[in-house]
């Protein structure tokens, strides 16, 4: 069998990979998997999910917002100088 024929065979047998979603199997998404086994999702993934959900809801601008500034400026973490 020629090299080209062998490559063609593998390519042909791999056609299903055009629809490979990345992860397969039981509880095929990280959220249900994590929930089932009591595992925490990473912060970056949660941020990604918020964006995805906001997009699905047709409101991509609300994906992640800092707390509204109605309560005034954020508290400074630096220690105030003590007056003598």
């Amino acid at each position, binding site marked *: 069998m020629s090299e080209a024929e062998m490559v063609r065979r593998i390519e042909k047998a791999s056609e*299903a990979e055009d*629809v490979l979603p*990345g992860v*397969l199997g*039981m509880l*095929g998404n990280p959220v249900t998997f994590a929930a089932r086994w009591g595992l925490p999702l990473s912060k970056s993934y949660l941020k990604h999910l918020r964006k995805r959900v906001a997009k699905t809801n047709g409101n991509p601008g609300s994906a992640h917002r800092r707390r509204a500034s109605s309560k005034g400026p954020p508290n400074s973490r630096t220690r105030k100088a003590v007056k003598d």
Partner: protein
Amino acid sequence: MRFQVVVGGKRRHVKLTFGSEHDLRLVSRWRATAAIAAHAGVRDTLEFARLASKRWRYYRRSIATATSLQHFKSIVSREGQAEVSILVLVRADWFARSSIIGLAQCRRTYCHHLIVEFLSVHPGIVGGALPRVRGVGSGLVYGLAELAGILEMPVVWGEATANSAPFYAKTLNARKISDHFFIRGAVLARCRRNFRQKFFGET
């Protein structure tokens, strides 16, 4: 065991092996380049790889975990109804981003069936980064069938989702897959044949 995949139009060998704790550290370091990070499956793959590491560590503490074929056989011969966790890896020493390019977390049930809990392919490959690699996901599924055959397991089964059902339907040559799949009988035999004849797999 080993089989072949296509990398940039050329054949390359990959190894199908049992994984260990050390390998999971490599898997948890899977990263995606910015160019493919937006691909639908890439973020899920990365998160799954991280969760897989945690889950496997939990298994190590709670049920038997086999780190080789011989180890698996010895566990089962000692205790016929043992639940055994195995991590099956696709190794490629030529892949620049990671030496592990695919993984399947499986569990042997008390009645000697193999459950595929999840299966994942490196995000770089899923995202279509260059060099384009084909055959890892399909080869892994057929490789699991071959492994089940070697271990005289009559059934490989798992749950399918809306995302994964089309892949399983194509791979298993089934008209339709609903929320579960069973690889047994003639289908198992065909998957094993595909592994050997189309992916040039060797045991």
